[in-house]
């Protein structure tokens, strides 16, 4: 389930942390293994793994384990689509509620 869902609230939470934003910037250049992500960070591998889990739960990042290496990559296209849909839906209801206001006048 974690690998197959984008939760925009969790995305917001995931983006609220500077370490995770740095990891996303890194993944924006190319996919990376968890240990590659950990290398420039002054944190334990266990802490990095936790951050990866939060990113994965949001749907921002997908991971895949091959042998002993877990590779992380951004899930940017799906995220862009989710964002457009949510914006479109919000716009739609905004105009409904505005029209309701006109009707009630």
């Amino acid at each position, binding site marked *: 389930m974690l690998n197959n869902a*984008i939760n925009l609230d969790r995305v917001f939470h995931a983006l609220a942390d500077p370490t995770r934003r740095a990891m996303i910037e890194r993944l924006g250049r190319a996919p990376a293994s968890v240990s590659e992500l950990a290398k420039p960070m002054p944190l334990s591998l266990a802490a990095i793994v936790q951050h990866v889990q939060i990113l994965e739960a949001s749907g921002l990042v997908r991971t895949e384990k091959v042998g002993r290496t877990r590779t992380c*990559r951004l899930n940017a296209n799906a995220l862009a689509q989710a964002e457009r849909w949510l914006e479109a839906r919000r716009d739609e209801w905004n105009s409904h509620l505005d029209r309701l206001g006109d009707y009630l006048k």
Partner: protein
Amino acid sequence: MSDIICHGQFTLERTYKASPERVYEAWSNVSAKAHWFIGPEGWHEVRREMDFRVGGYELLEGRFENGRTTLYQARFHALSAARRIVLVFDMHLSEVHHSTSLVTVEFSPAGRGTHLRFTEHVAFLDGTTSAGSREHGTAVHLDRLTTCLSKSP
């Protein structure tokens, strides 16, 4: 391909000068609702039905000039006159199941008027995962997303 589900939620608020009873009426009466619950420009209504009771069903079918169709199908789950409406709806776009949502609409008195709070929890169902490629430029994109999400209260 539809192998990804995207979850989101948002809340919209308005204050209207009409009483909660009148605002609720605009939601619960099919001909009143037809004044404001309509598609954007270029859209026209094909079919509208509403059976406003718990367990009752609402349908709004429409078509754009370019032939695209919309189908909104809702079921009312909880109703409390002049106070709240809880419904679940499916949206089909050109016969593809686009989303399923839980909506709550809360009405509360605000002076002589009404404060309305609309919240939707939505699951978009016709997503595709297109692996690889456009990963560049994501930072810009995420900035926009953060802005977009922080708009919701």
